[in-house]
């Protein structure tokens, strides 16, 4: 199926278009977060509630109803420190998306390299690959992530230094990638295996084409569809896992805004200030839903056999 017709099919899919628009909107918000907050006149790290008066009670809860929503703070303020919720949310998208996109990029590269190589070469490599996949799939990744933070802290960060932001991001990205490439590689291995036996590859081989030629010219162009579907669905999965980590108390550290941490704190003050949990919770829900719908649309557009 030519790329043109894929785009055409996709364009006819209204839900797909809408979800793409939502995803694009989130991406735009992430990119433009500094600009938007500047126009809005707030930043995500200032403790408005603590530095101003009349915003937080002595116990640290917003004094105004609905989580302190006001003309000043459109989405209210955070209990405890009194940071601006809207600014935190906007910057939180950056955190989520940076990790998700970077991990997905690594996953795509690693998945394609391993999947295609193993599928094409087969033999002993294939057995080793299956074993590694089995191990990684059975390993409780969340527990590993819980433990890895302190290990990295002690091994790679000076005891008198804060863990730099880039390192926190890198660790998360690497771990997500380490587990994320497996399903993609497994799919590609199967695809390549069947492609290998098809006529056009056989023909190329018979004509004396080099391995390189076969892999790059004959195989790779035929695997991009499953790769695209996989990475569209990988982004929301990584966003939610990252949020889950922050929920459990590991993940990106203060003061970098993070949705998972907001939800976790929201769960604590839920009975007194439900508003604070609803904003990050609902944002995460809409974002993930849009991405899942987009993934579906991409899958449908790419797969002519989809039965509806």
């Amino acid at each position: 199926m030519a790329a043109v017709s894929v785009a055409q099919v996709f364009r006819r899919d209204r839900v797909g278009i809408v979800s793409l628009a939502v995803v694009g909107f989130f991406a735009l918000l992430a990119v433009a977060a500094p600009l938007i907050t500047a126009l809005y006149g707030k930043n995500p790290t200032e403790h408005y509630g603590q530095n101003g008066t009349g915003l937080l009670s002595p116990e640290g809860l917003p004094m105004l109803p609905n989580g302190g929503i006001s003309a000043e703070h459109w989405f209210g303020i955070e209990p405890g420190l009194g940071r601006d919720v809207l600014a935190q949310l906007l910057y939180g998208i950056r955190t989520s998306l940076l990790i998700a996109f970077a991990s997905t990029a690594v996953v795509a590269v690693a998945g394609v390299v391993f999947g295609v190589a193993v599928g094409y070469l087969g033999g002993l490599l294939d057995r080793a690959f299956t074993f590694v996949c089995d191990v990684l799939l059975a390993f409780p990744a969340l527990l590993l992530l819980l433990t890895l933070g302190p290990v990295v802290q002690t091994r790679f960060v000076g005891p008198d230094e804060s863990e730099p932001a880039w390192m926190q991001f890198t660790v998360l990205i690497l771990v997500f990638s380490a587990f994320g490439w497996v399903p993609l590689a497994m799919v590609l291995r199967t695809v390549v295996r069947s492609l290998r036996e098809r006529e056009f590859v056989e023909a190329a081989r018979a004509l004396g084409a080099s391995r390189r030629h076969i892999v790059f010219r004959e195989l790779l162009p035929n695997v991009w569809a499953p790769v695209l579907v996989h990475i569209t669905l990988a982004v929301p999965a990584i966003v939610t896992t990252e949020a889950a980590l922050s929920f459990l108390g590991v993940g990106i550290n203060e003061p970098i805004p993070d949705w998972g941490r907001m939800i976790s704190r929201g769960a604590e003050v839920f009975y007194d200030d439900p508003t604070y949990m609803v904003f990050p919770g609902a944002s995460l829900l809409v974002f993930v839903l849009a991405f899942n719908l987009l993934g579906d649309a991409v899958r449908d557009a790419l797969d002519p056999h989809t039965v509806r």
Partner: protein
Amino acid sequence: MTRYLVTRAAQAVAVLLAITALAFALFYAAPSDPALIACGPKCDTAQVDAVRASMGLDQPLLSQFLDYVGGLVTGRIIADVDGTPIPCPAPCLGYSYTLHQPVLAAITDRLPVTVSLAAGALTVIVVLGVGSGLAAALRRGRATDRLLSGFGLLGASVQIYFLGYVLQLLLVYSTGLFPLPRYVPFAAHPAQWALGLLLPWLVLGFVNAAVFARLTRSQMLETMHHGYVRTARAKGLGTLRAHLKYTARGAAGPLVQLLGLEVGALLGGAFITETVFGLGGVGKLAVDAVNGNDLPTVVGTVLLAAFFVVVSVAVADVVVAWLDPRVRLA
């Protein structure tokens, strides 16, 4: 079939061994010192060293690992903080100096909670997922299909740690429509057992059903167009009966495999669900152990989680192989 079984079992054991090694290497690289924790906050260096030696933590990592694997198979003797021997029969998962309990005992104490949670959730997932997938396939393209798939997607996109809290507030604490989430042993009071876990089951079911619904739907649609189903219908077999008799069977393979993964995930990865609903199962044990640097328990729970995944996937593979002899040759 026997040969297949043996190969599959050998694979599973190899994977588990690799995971044990991995867990061991990773968690013993952690910054904290179990000896220090066992000794208490006021221990000085000399005392901690003494405790470390009696716990066997001064041995090289490899010999500790071999001891551990040996203990899994034959059991072993573990030294307490003061050097008192503690017998740990096979399969020995080590001894937790934080809980003052063999890790296996700590796990088996909490396993009923996790198993109950998984069993109920699985029932909800299968009923909800397969049911709505079937319904959606049969009513393909109609409003029912739309609605069911939509809600499935919503479930797949919502987070347990968000939905769980929201529903607890709305349904338990504000309105009292649902009982407080808690664990009552099934043997003690079956009705309260079910009631106490109802909300977690429904939430887990809702969140996980979408994958099943989607797979059921697509499998059904695919097999519905196969020749043998059409033939059966042409021969006058009623639509529903034809579907159930031929379609469902043809579609079962991938579903069984997905089910295997799900069982493993539910039994081995209930960290968040148990945290959200305050249930003291194995997932909570694992998270607490990580936070409290209780390394033997961490390694034990990792191994258990992996064990569940490996075994349930292997069982699913065997079932699929039994359903479809072609698989065995692959």
